[in-house]
């Protein structure tokens, strides 16, 4: 168990800069999720932490130890790979005990730790199988078990669930969460799936193009995204955006539709070109508000998802109830002042209220 500090970390492959200066503090026992689209540098960052890649510049500290130039074995980290990277020629037992064996632990100690970890993960019956004889979920558990056995300072997960089918992914997600709550180890978890990040992490770090866009508690990011990218990346279905201009407390679109302006639409922000944003579940059918034409109705059971068009833009609406709406029908929608997000049309930065 340990803290981790990363400062001004850079990494280039040839002329290509993958990480452009990362600063990150991870507290002891924290579960940090690194999210972002493909190529944002999140996996590279994880590999730098693991020691599989060498930093071009900057510093990584785990606990009190500067590990920037150290090989993986001296960092006391464990890693779970996307494709599990199990040793195909070793049994589950030996896969899990491999690191202890290399460390020269005695047989009874290895056996005890392996059996403990297997118990936690429900692998008891599979200890003498080979990876080739296991299902995807079982392999994932073995990969996790291999990490647990070592009781490392830091757990690293590199998209560990993305090779599983949807149902198994949800189940394993819950298991990993329970595991963290039980072990209380510091964990860094890379994923491109924002739901995994939201559900698992104490803190989410959103990355893009080698930089950290925003970091914070999941709901904090969800409620107050610092820019349009973060706003669009977190949440599913993702946030709706429409271009417009702040005029008299409202956001007026090109075709003249007046959208609710929210808390930041007053004062000196008047006349500013913005990106108006509202989450699908914030759009509420109302007697007032702006009018939208229903194009598609998708009932999912608990919810109903509507695809509507307002101000020439497609919007996704998520209703927490059954709906009698039909395609072709026009419905008025309103948004609570607190649920409107405004971003600068050019920079995408969040527009705050100004006097």
């Amino acid at each position, binding site marked *: 168990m340990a803290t981790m500090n990363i400062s001004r970390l850079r990494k280039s492959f040839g002329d290509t800069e993958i990480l452009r200066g990362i600063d990150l503090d991870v507290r002891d026992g924290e579960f940090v999720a690194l999210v972002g689209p493909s190529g944002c540098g999140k996996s590279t960052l994880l590999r730098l932490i*693991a*020691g*599989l890649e060498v930093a071009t510049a900057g510093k990584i500290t785990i606990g009190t130890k500067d590990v920037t130039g150290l*090989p*993986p*074995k001296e960092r006391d*980290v*464990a*890693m779970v*790979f*996307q*494709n599990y*990277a*199990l*040793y*195909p*020629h070793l*049994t589950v037992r030996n896969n899990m005990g*491999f*690191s202890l064996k*290399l*460390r020269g632990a005695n047989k009874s100690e290895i056996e005890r730790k392996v059996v403990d970890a297997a118990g936690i993960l429900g692998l008891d019956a599979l200890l003498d199988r*080979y990876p*080739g*004889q296991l299902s995807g979920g079982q392999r994932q558990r073995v990969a996790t078990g*291999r990490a647990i056995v*070592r009781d490392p300072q830091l757990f690293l997960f590199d998209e560990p669930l993305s090779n599983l089918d949807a149902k198994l992914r949800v189940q394993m997600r819950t298991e990993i969460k329970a595991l963290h709550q039980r072990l209380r180890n510091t964990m860094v978890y890379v994923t491109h799936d924002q739901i995994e990040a939201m559900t698992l992490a104490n803190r989410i770090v959103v990355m893009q193009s080698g930089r950290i866009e925003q970091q914070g508690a999941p709901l904090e990011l969800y409620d107050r995204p610092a820019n349009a990218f973060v706003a669009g990346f977190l949440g599913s279905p993702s946030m709706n955006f429409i271009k417009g201009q702040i005029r008299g407390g409202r956001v007026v679109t090109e075709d003249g539709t007046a959208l609710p302006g929210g808390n930041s639409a007053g004062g000196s922000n008047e006349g500013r070109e913005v990106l108006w944003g509202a989450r699908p579940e914030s759009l509420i059918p109302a007697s007032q508000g702006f009018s939208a034409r229903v194009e598609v109705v998708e009932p999912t059971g608990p919810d109903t998802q509507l695809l509507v068009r307002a101000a020439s833009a497609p919007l996704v609406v998520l209703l927490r109830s059954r709906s009698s709406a039909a395609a072709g029908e026009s419905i008025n929608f309103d948004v609570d002042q607190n649920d409107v997000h405004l971003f600068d049309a050019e920079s995408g930065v969040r527009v705050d209220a100004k006097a």
Partner: protein
Amino acid sequence: MISSRWTPFLFLAPALAGLLIFRLVPIGIAVGGSLTGVSLMGDLNFVGGENFHYLLSDPQFWASLKITLWFNLIINPLQLAIAFGLAMLVFRPLPGLWIYRALLVLPMAVSTGISAVLFGLFLDSNLGPFNGFLEWIGVGAQPFHRSQDQALYTLIGIATWKGAGYWMLFLLAGLYSIPSTVYEAATIDGASGWQRFRYVTLPLMRKPMAFVLVADTAINFLFFAPVYILTSGGPGGATSLLMFEAYRSAFTFSDIGRSLAISTILLGIILVIVVLEFRLLRSPEERS
């Protein structure tokens, strides 16, 4: 309409026919022929186990068998080890690597016969450049294939020069098929370079190594051309491998029966050794 039970056989028929005509029939002829003798006037007659029985009391056969086994005991592990070493060397990307790869694979393009002739000239005791070199560095000229002590090892050297690059290709393909993340997992688990080789590379290379060892063994038991071209089984019988003995029996002394008896025994030996090698190199999953 053909019943569906027979349909698979219909599709397999061409392959099975090929197997029968080009593999099983010649083997049948060899084994059958080993039970026959040819009279002076060319008449074929059945002699039962006589050819084999005679071999038992034939000192030349035992000497050849000993040489053949010794030859294989050395050359097969040697070629495997060298091919593996070469594969490891050219596995990691380095600038200009393709040049090394090409150089290593080049001997494949030279036919066995030609390479034997080339080495004959290269190692010649009077005119060969290699002996000139050895004298220059002070080692002194060596007789190589002209000496009873060195001939067999000279042949092993030539065959290895020719074969190692070829076998390297299979091992190189094997190395590339090991996922890099398995190495990374081992690195994070604390394995040093040697430990990664010992615990990851070696066990995961079992299959390609088994293939190379088995194929190489089968080929080396039938090793022939350099013996024929360079040593004719000599000097002093030092290189009279069984295959050469079989050839001589058939084509120099018209004793087809003895030749086929030797071939049949060779076939049996190869079969036994290949089965042993396969067992030895089976992966643990298959063993359990």
